[in-house]
Every structure is written in C-alpha cells, then in structure tokens.
C-alpha cells in the first residue's frame, strides 16, 4: 500500500492531484460523501490533468475537451475521449488514504 494523504486534505467538490516520484503515474483523488475515489489524473484522450477539471457529483470533466469521466468506473460519457481511465481501489485507515501499489503500477498505453 502507498500512503497518499490524509482524508482531511481532500476538499469536497474538488479534485486533488497527487504526483510524486514514488508514484508511476499522477493520481487524482475525489471525496464524494464519505467515500474517496482514486483515478489516473491524465485524461485518456490527450495530455490534460483531470485535477484541473470540473467535478460534478461522481463525474470529472476534462478541462480541455469536456469528456466527463465517472470516478467510480473510469468510463467517459462522450467524445473525444473513447477509452476509460484507470480507477484504483483506495483504503482508508485512521483517516489516511492508501492505494494498492500494484494498481497504480505503470502499464503499457492501450495504443
């Protein structure tokens, strides 16, 4: 497990970017209600940071081209994005957010 941050650092209604040398890819965290969701921060369409985007319920809108991704499934709702982004299981222990190491390991791009 990789420790990411404390739950208190996550502001409801915003997307928090976590990019660190020990993470193979930048991640984005979203707190909705009591749950915390973790997705890849980089849009599956072109290089945009989803943490710059708009959060509406469980959906994050890419700041460049407006595809919206469901943080629960990673699926985009409309073009230009066609591919899902990765979602990662998080664990909350004593108010700290952890993510599974194998889950965020770098993977070959689909293309």
């Amino acid at each position, binding site marked *: 497990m990789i420790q990411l941050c404390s739950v208190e650092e996550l502001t409801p209604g915003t997307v928090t970017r976590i990019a660190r040398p020990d993470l193979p890819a930048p991640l984005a965290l979203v707190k909705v209600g009591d749950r915390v969701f973790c997705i890849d921060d980089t849009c599956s369409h072109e290089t*945009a940071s989803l943490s*710059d985007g*708009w959060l509406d319920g469980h959906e994050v809108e890419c*700041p*460049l081209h407006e595809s919206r991704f469901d943080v629960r499934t990673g699926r985009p709702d*409309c*073009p230009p994005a066609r591919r899902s982004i990765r979602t990662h299981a998080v664990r909350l222990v004593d108010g700290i957010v952890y993510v599974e190491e194998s889950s965020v390991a770098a993977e070959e791009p689909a293309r």
Partner: protein
Amino acid sequence: MSTIAVVGVGLAGVRAGEALRAQGHDGRLVMIGEEAVEPYDRPPLSKQVLLGTYEACDIALTDTASRAELDAEWLLGTRATAFDPVTRHLTLSDGQSLHAEGVVIATGARARTLSGVPELDSVHTLRTLDDARRLRDDLSRPGRVAVVGGGFIGAEVASAARALGHEVTIVEFEQMPLLRQLGSAAAGVLRRLHTDHGVPLVTGVSVTGLVGRDRVQAVSLSDGRSLPADVVVVGIGAVPNTEWLAGSGVALDNGVLTDEWCRTTVPGVVAAGDVAAYRCRGGRRLRIEHWTNARDMPATAARSLLATLRGEDPVEQPAHDPLPYVWSDQYDSHLQIAGRPDADDALELVSGSFDSGFVAVYRRDGAVTGVLAVDSPKEFGRLRRELRGTWATR
C-alpha cells in the same frame, strides 16, 4: 419500421446515429459516407497526424463494439446526390435509390480553395485524412512552407511544419491572425506565438497567383512580392456541402437552414454540424464549424426527428443553444475560447499575462461575452461555467 438515413459520417453524422439509437430508434439506420474509410475525428489531422504521432487507427470515431451497438448499414465510399421530398428517395452516387422516412443531413463542409490559380501538386488544403497524408508526405522532405490563412487550421499547420523543422511563413489577409474574430489584443497574442517560434507573418496581403509547373515554387502576393515556397497549405475557410440538396425543397443559404430544433424546411429532414445554419434564440443565424458543435448538435437533431416521426411536436423538446467552445493547439500552447465575443468587445485580463499563460474575458456593456485562455485550463473552466450560467438565462 421506419428507415432513417444519416448523410455524412463525420463526427456529426456518427453522433446523430448514436443519438438516434440511444433515443430509441429501432428501425433501419443507414449511414452514408463519401469517403471509403471508417469514420474518423478531424482535430488531430492538423496536429498529431501531420507530426506522425497518430495513425488512422488513433483517430477512429467508432470501433467494433460501438459499430455493433449502432447496428447500422454502412454505405461508405458513397455520396448522396439528390433527395426527393415527395417520394422521400435519396439518390446515391452508385445509382442506388434509398427510401427514408427520416433524413439527417450531416454533410459538413469542404475546404475553400484559392480561385484563379493553377492546380499544382504541392499545394494543399487540409480537411480529410487523405489530405493530411498527402501533406505529411510533402512535409517529410526539406523545403520552405507557405501557409495561406492565419486562422486555426493555418496556425496549427504552421506549428506542425515548424516542429518538423521547416522554414514556415504565414500569409494573412488581415493585419493580424483572427483579428476579425478575436479583436486586436488577442490577435496580437496569436501573432506573437508565431513569431516567437520563428514563423514570420506576411500580413495585409492576399495571394494573387502561384508560380511553378508541376510543383509550386513561389506564391505571388498582392503587394507585388513573391514568396518562395516548396509546399503551400491553404487554410482560408470552408464551404458547406449542400449542392446535392438543390431542388429538394430544403432551404439553403450558406448552409442548410434549420430552426432551433435542427428542423429544415422539409418535414422529417434535420441537419446538424458544420453544414447546418441554425437559428438560435433571438433569431440570429449561426453556422458553427467547431468540433464541439458537431458533437452536441446531433442530439437535438435526433430528438427532434424522432418526435416528428412519432407525430409529436419537437418544440416540446430542448432547443439547440449551446455556449460555443473551441480550442486550438499551436506550438506548445493550448488555446481555449468560449462564448461569442465580437472583435470590438473589451478584452480584460483576469489572471496571468498576455506574454505567457493567461485567462481573459471579453465584455460588452459590462456583460461577459466570451472567455479566452492560453495554457490556463482550470481557470478557463471556472469562467466558462459562469458564462454558461448567464448564457442559459440571457
């Protein structure tokens, strides 16, 4: 079981087909595309495709799964050449005749060309995948590139050609690129983007001729100068593809005229995307050639067409009245523009600086009419959302 024909399978056509299915059309769906290739997305043509980072498979608009879900008959490499509103028959370029209760016109627009100049091999427009491949081949050899037109296509091609190591010059009729669309402050920023990257602009001139036998050697300009060039790319706008509708009863005027619900003057015929000159609230007529409009307009067209075919009144459905949005990638910068500013609206910096990344708003009589950003997506998104709120209630 009714048949709906979607004429044109660019983004608007594909989205129309998808929207028709999503909204419950379970009859026959025929997708008619002039090009013989599977539907593809156009924005990367002037960027990643020219640079060679994307191939055709990277810009496909459909895949095996989405085509299966669409459950359509595809007539690719086929054009509609006529439509008879009485018998409701489409005539196709292969001689076939197709009966359709509903028709979606999504034939888009084609690149405008220079008139009165000879056709030479190394003179390009950029609209299709074939165009992009031919231009990419020409850019694979060393040579000087002249880009005619400093709009988005011209700017992106200039940027790609520069990245490929070419000496590039832009020829622009106005004193600055996009001056009439964005005003002098923003146009000045765009001009600087070019000059900072070693791409000079020759402004206030038009092209009067092309010199060369098979391939171009130089561009003759209206001020008497001659600009040496081995490759010329012409990016001077687009013309809606409406010729096939002559005599169909579908009213045309620089595009297919539609109302707010994408209905043409012929019942059961709707239009969407670049080809559609729609009437928005307030009666103004707009033909928007932006990608986002082609993505979003077909949903209204499909809803309205299906309502008509069911004998219902589409006016009960939401009208098409989006906040316009367009982006452009030039050199390493990402431009975003929302709204519909006039060139003489005041441009006011919100954050950043015109020399690097910034967000600025256009104002007229105190009210925001548009948002312009360079490399500031987050702040742009916030202001665009605010503008969207006032847009909906204006």
